[in-house]
């Protein structure tokens, strides 16, 4: 196996000013937020321009990076001392981070453009764009930072942007609640990430990636400063952080509710970019995971469990966005599975992440286009037959659909197949479960397409669907082009694996991707996908779809209720938490307050009685003085006799 290359210090060139990628969207967000309503008229254009400018810088940095020999493709750019003596702030431009930067700014810009049309009727469009820009800046900081501290700042930044955007329509109680839920569930993950960072700091005394490579981890383990248990703990805690951000089991519950946000947000943050930050974290921390096989195994198990859970949830949802959200969970499960499989898996995981970014953003924006046409109706049971009235949306959505189910030669086919094959070599049980997940994907995505674009029209009476304006359809077309060709381009000839090698290492044996694989696993996957799609056609294409959801079997209800994830959280955490607070309140009111109030009442009552001694009669005072004097004299005499 070939290790990642050394990190070089860089200055000059486009890479030297790559901080512009973060600064420009941040400036956009600042201008739009501080400028207020004065910027309403042109705010959305500024947002788009800033995002596009970041994309241009990212492309230029990418080109410059490609111009360097492979052995020097990890360039660190120092910026300033963040905490003197503890951490320097800097950016790391390497194949991994630049891949993310291109995805974030590229897909991000398309979604910015789309949002001009989608949010055109919203009076708060400027605020929306300022949050989008803030998100892009924070996400870029997350992936470009050359140390864990910068990553954490970006990590929290995207959490904030996600919160603001899920709750963008905060007048809807559901949206406000969903935003809070996303934020709180993410805190659990952040807790894990923080502890992991503390541990890393206490062992290595540094947050910088250049001091935390595979060599450093091995040296620390050989030198005895890092035990096997500690490195496993670091891996598991990092995974907890990744689970929170990437909506993996057991912290998956926030993602489905996050669909309360505007659809471009769901496409950008909750499908294409932010939720993949967990995968980035695991891949970036590869040095720790490779030293901790247990943690790696847990990563793959979490990935497989989530990919099945997400697929099962996706099968039963009638809300088109929630169906896509379940699908997102499931696909990120695939990425996690890949990220737990070492360097071969890293390349496939990141490749799947990028192609998924395209086809899922494509489908989310397609869903947004459909909702836009159907008066914000999200229930697929009220769609049907939309192919005839919105051809561009339907065709682009269909391309995304083919890509995600792994239709041969499209993007998803190569990347997902790569993850499944790698998992199969690693562990057959995980591999076959991933194949099963692919079959489920075939079913639920087909169900979505058939219910939305085909079959009888089940529209509401006042629905007059129409194709969306070109500002919305052009991004769809561009994204669908990526959904077609990107997978083949990245995977064939191991192009992406070799490109990523300087950042994550290269496996000793390279896989041999085929244009069309004819192995048992590949054919079995295709067969299962075909069965799933055929079953979906039988149930939702050929047959009549009832407008009101039937009660459904036990399994359907199970999936519809998000596998009872919320019920579980309520029973395990919320209820005991409420009991705990009730006990604390009782103890506070009765115990602590009782003690304090009782003491005060006791003193008050006693003094109320004692003050009766002050009668105002001088002669009684004189008597008590005499009595006191007699006692003193008596005492003196008694002491004198002793």
């Amino acid at each position: 196996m070939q290790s990642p290359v050394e990190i070089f210090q860089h200055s000059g060139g486009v890479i030297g000013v790559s901080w512009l990628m973060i600064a420009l969207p941040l400036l956009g967000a600042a201008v739009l937020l501080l400028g207020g309503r004065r910027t309403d008229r042109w705010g959305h254009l500024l947002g788009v321009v800033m995002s596009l400018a970041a994309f241009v810088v990212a492309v230029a940095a990418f080109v410059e990076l490609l111009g360097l020999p492979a052995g020097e493709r990890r360039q660190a750019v120092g910026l300033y001392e963040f905490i003197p003596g503890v951490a320097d702030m800097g950016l790391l431009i390497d194949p991994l981070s630049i891949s993310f930067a291109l995805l974030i700014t590229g897909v991000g810009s398309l979604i910015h453009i789309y949002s001009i049309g989608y949010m055109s009727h919203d009076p708060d469009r400027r605020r929306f764009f300022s949050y989008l820009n803030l998100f892009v800046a924070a996400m870029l900081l997350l992936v470009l930072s050359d140390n864990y501290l910068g990553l954490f700042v970006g990590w929290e930044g995207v959490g904030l942007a996600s919160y603001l955007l899920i709750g963008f329509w905060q007048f809807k109680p559901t949206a406000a609640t969903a935003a809070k839920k996303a934020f709180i569930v993410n805190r659990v993950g952040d807790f894990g990430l923080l502890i992991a960072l503390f541990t890393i700091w206490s062992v290595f005394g540094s947050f910088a990636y250049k001091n935390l490579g595979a060599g450093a981890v091995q040296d620390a383990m050989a030198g005895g400063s890092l035990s096997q248990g500690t490195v496993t703990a670091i891996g598991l805690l990092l995974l907890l952080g990744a689970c929170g951000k990437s909506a993996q089991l057991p912290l998956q519950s926030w993602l489905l509710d996050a669909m309360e946000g505007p659809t471009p947000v769901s496409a950008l943050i909750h499908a294409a970019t932010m939720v993949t930050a967990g995968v980035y974290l695991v891949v970036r921390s590869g040095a720790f995971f490779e030293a901790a096989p247990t943690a790696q195994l847990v990563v793959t198990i979490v990935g497989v469990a989530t990919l099945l859970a997400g697929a099962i949830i996706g099968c039963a949802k009638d809300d088109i966005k929630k169906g896509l959200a379940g699908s997102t969970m499931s696909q990120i499960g695939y990425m996690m599975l890949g990220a737990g499989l070492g360097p071969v898996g890293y390349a496939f995981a990141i490749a799947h992440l990028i192609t998924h970014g395209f086809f899922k953003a494509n489908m989310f924006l397609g869903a947004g286009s459909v909702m836009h046409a159907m008066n914000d109706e999200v229930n697929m049971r009220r769609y049907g037959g939309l192919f005839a009235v919105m051809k561009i949306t339907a065709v682009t959505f269909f391309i995304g659909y083919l890509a995600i189910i792994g239709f041969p030669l499209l993007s998803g086919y190569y990347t997902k197949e790569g993850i499944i094959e790698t998992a199969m070599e690693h562990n057959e049980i995980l591999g076959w479960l991933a194949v099963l997940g692919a079959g489920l994907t075939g079913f639920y995505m087909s169900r979505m397409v058939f219910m939305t674009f085909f079959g009888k029209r089940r529209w509401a009476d006042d629905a007059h669907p129409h194709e969306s304006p070109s500002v919305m359809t052009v991004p769809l077309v561009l994204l669908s082009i990526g959904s077609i060709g990107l997978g083949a381009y990245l995977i064939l000839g191991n192009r992406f694996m070799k490109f990523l090698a300087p950042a994550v290492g290269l496996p000793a044996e390279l896989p041999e991707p085929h244009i069309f694989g004819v192995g048992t696993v590949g054919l079995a996957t295709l067969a299962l996908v075909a069965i799933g799609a055929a079953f979906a056609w039988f149930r939702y294409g050929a047959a009549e779809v009832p407008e009101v959801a039937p009660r459904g079997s036990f399994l359907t209800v199970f999936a519809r209720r998000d596998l009872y994830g919320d019920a579980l959280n309520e029973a395990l955490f919320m209820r005991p938490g409420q009991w705990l607070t009730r006990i604390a309140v009782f103890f506070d009111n009765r115990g602590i307050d009782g003690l304090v109030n009782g003491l005060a009442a006791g003193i008050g009552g006693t003094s109320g009685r004692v003050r009766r001694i002050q009668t105002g009669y001088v002669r009684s005072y004189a008597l008590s003085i005499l009595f006191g004097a007699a006692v003193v004299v008596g005492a003196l005499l008694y002491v004198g006799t002793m």
Partner: protein
Amino acid sequence: MTTHYLVLSALLFAIGAVGVLIRRNAIVVFMCVELMLNACNLAFVTFARQHGNLDGQLIAFFVMVVAAAEVVVGLAIIVMIFRTRRSASVDDANLLKY
């Protein structure tokens, strides 16, 4: 040989103390206070004589001076209270209480 003086002093002090405790008229109470002071003075000079030490006599003069000053202030207060309340009873002047 000084025992008689001391017994007399104790008797005078007891009479004064009982007077302060049982009489209501402020003037009489005042006189009883003077009686107690002078009983003390008698005890002081008695002991001075017994021990051949002048300190006790010295203190007696001090007590007389203080008693004179006290009479001035005390009588003035009693007269003022009598003028406003038409009463010299110490039990009537009981406003300063709980």
